[in-house]
């Protein structure tokens, strides 16, 4: 019976500490929310990720686009153009990123990415392989 108050205090203490830890945790979301998407007409499956997930805002950095067909085959020799915008603010990317290297195996290096504001960005890739052109859109928050 004498243990009960101690137990209650302990439970209360643990709860309070957990609450404090939750409240002091940095904002959720992480540096990026990269994803794999089907292209609009479902010709391609595209994975688009930053080379270094710890990139800083307002700093030029590299992304990798990995392009597969809808059946999962890697797509070589594709031509990719990139643009981006912040839908909530109506402005575009401050840079004009370009594919700088075909890494082989359906992977393409894209340099010149730069985000001059934290928030939701919409990144659009137009991909041409052979006689097929399709677009894919990523909505990401960082």
């Amino acid at each position, binding site marked *: 019976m*004498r*243990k009960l*108050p*101690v*137990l209650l*205090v*302990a439970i*209360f*203490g*643990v*709860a*309070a*500490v957990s*609450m*404090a830890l939750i*409240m*002091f945790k*940095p*904002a959720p979301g992480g540096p990026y929310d990269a994803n794999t998407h089907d292209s609009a007409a479902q010709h391609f499956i595209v994975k688009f990720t930053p080379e270094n997930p710890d990139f*800083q*805002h*307002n*700093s*030029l950095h590299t992304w990798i686009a990995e392009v597969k067909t809808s059946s999962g085959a890697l797509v070589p020799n594709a031509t990719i153009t990139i643009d981006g915008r912040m839908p909530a*603010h*109506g*402005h*575009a*990317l*401050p*840079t*004009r*990123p*370009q594919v700088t290297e075909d890494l082989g195996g359906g992977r393409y290096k894209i*340099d*010149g990415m*730069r985000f*001059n*504001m*934290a928030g939701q960005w919409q990144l659009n890739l137009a991909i041409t392989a052979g006689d097929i052109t399709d677009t894919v859109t990523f909505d990401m928050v960082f």
Partner: protein
Amino acid sequence: MHRLLLTGTLVAAFGSAAIASVVLFRDTGLSDTELAVARNLTLANLPKMPSDPSNAVADNAGAIALGALLFSDTGMSANANVSCATCHQEDRQFQDDQQLARGIGTTTRRTMPLRGVGYQSWFFWDGRKDSLWSQAIGPIESAVEHGFTRSQVAIHVIATYRDRYARLFGSLPKLADIPPASPMGDKSQQANWQDLPENTRDEINRIFVNIGKSIAAFERTLAPLENRFDRYVNAVWSGQTPSAGAMLTRQEINGFKVFAGKGQCTNCHNGPRLTDEFFHNTGLADATTPYDDRGRATAFVQLDSDPFTCAGRYSDAEPESCGDLRFMAREFHLFDRTFKSPSLRGVTDRAPFMHAGQIGTLEQVIEHYNNAFPALLGQSEITPLGLSTREKAALLAFLRTL
């Protein structure tokens, strides 16, 4: 049993402290999300100074020391009375409080403050320079600023800084009896420049550029200063009660919410320097010559013909590493009459405002954004805010904490 009691007491004490912190946190009037946004605007979020591959002496102690001397050297001006420090005054946040900068004559734009300048990618209000060293030598040859020429700079450096210079960049050439010569000067100075042999022009350019690289090395040491907002957010973030010098009033906190919310200020004034380092048209008029200054839109042509860019022969960088230039957005219609967002650190003590000092007070600046009249040229990016009198007063109070 005693051990259990002791554990219980410790846990209770820790728990109470945590609860006190939570209560204090709530007292700030900031939600978890707002605190995260606020934190993003503080110096705690300031990254390490980025390297400048185009400047081999960017962080060299000797270059910093030489740059500090050159920064205040009036010997590099037509009337021996103008230096960088004439307009960039240390005790005035490295600016001059004038509507338009004054050297030998009067320029068409406002002097920019320099703290944190080493973090920038583009320089001047229109970003017509892509490195700090290339920016630093621009005003020396401007007829209305230093009014000097690069040949005179070279001769002055040989006479004044021979040993310091040689330790950094190697021995200086002999350049005797060369008249004032520059491709940027008046007609006779341009003619004198054309008359010089190619290798002499190159030697002069090399000295001129190294002077810029030294001044840039010094300017990179001008760090942003901590303000009351930084101190308040840091204290709250780490669960401490802000000290007297770190306290914000309820009105100032409300002003922060307007700044990051309804006022849309963080669209452009974000990150620890409170700038996105980019170019925007907000429908401003010009100061003296209406609608003549196209801002960023005309900078691309200048960058194309500038021998002193990151990708040029006087840069220390490999051209492919000049990413800002290589991936630059350059559509005229998107950049017509756009100007760089300045840092807002210390802004209340830096009237008049905007790229040509067009607006005298911060109250009027807030009205400008609240009204958001259409641009007379180009496309304004801002829309009316509908701020109440109370919100405008709070926003002003917040700006004073920066």
